[in-house]
């Protein structure tokens, strides 16, 4: 529809017309501001924490371990320079004497959910799989943040978000691949 509108506007005398083909679905999926009568329905992008430690696949593992520990985390999300999610490194799962680059040890393709997904449906998914968090990404795979189950539950109950900043154990941490 928007290409037709863009052409129409040019015929009406507008000289600088742009067509945002991906439209509002893409905008919402990136967790960007929206308005309207449905905006009160919480989406994953609204409450995802944006404090993930990120790294590139070419970084040295020893450097990344240091970076993750300094941030008080246990995981590094591996992305491209353009924030596209490639994988994940959980430092508590690495051998003590591990060497090399992140790309050698990262878990490929962690599960993500889109930022415009309604929280209740994601919560159901987390509960059914018994995982505590899930990565939130845009429709083109760029990292937005991490959604924690405790935050989702708190939001749906209209209560304050609990801090779930404790390191994730093997059973509770999100898993790979759908």
């Amino acid at each position, binding site marked *: *529809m*928007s*290409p*037709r*509108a*863009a*052409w*129409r*506007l*040019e015929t*009406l*005398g*507008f*000289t*600088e*017309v*742009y*067509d*945002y*083909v*991906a*439209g*509002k679905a*893409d*905008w*919402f999926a*990136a967790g*960007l*501001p*929206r*308005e*309207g*009568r*449905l*905006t009160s329905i919480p989406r994953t992008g609204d409450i995802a924490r944006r404090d993930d430690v990120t790294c590139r696949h070419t970084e040295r593992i020893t450097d990344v371990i240091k970076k993750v520990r300094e941030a008080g985390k246990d995981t590094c999300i591996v992305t491209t320079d353009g924030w596209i999610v490639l994988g994940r490194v959980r430092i508590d799962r690495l051998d003590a004497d591990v060497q090399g680059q992140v790309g050698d040890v990262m878990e490929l393709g962690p599960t993500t959910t889109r930022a415009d997904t309604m929280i209740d449906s994601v919560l159901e998914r987390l509960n059914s799989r018994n995982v505590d968090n899930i990565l939130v990404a845009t429709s083109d795979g760029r990292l937005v943040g991490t959604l924690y189950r405790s935050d989702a539950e708190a939001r749906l109950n209209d209560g304050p978000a609990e801090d779930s900043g404790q390191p994730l154990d093997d059973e509770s941490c999100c898993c790979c691949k759908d």
Partner: protein
Amino acid sequence: MPTSIVREEVQRLITGEAGQLVEVLPSEEYQDEHIEGAINIPLKRLDRETTSHLDKTRPLIVY
């Protein structure tokens, strides 16, 4: 000829060049949810009169 753009360019045009956002979907869809700051002119009503309040000297982004 209209130029197709991606999200980052939309953001840049809005913040840096006072771009105007127009949603051309039916008003019901607009009322449900739209990009912050967008106005609604459904495609079928896109004419000289309904666009008269838009500024022709600023970028116009449609979706």
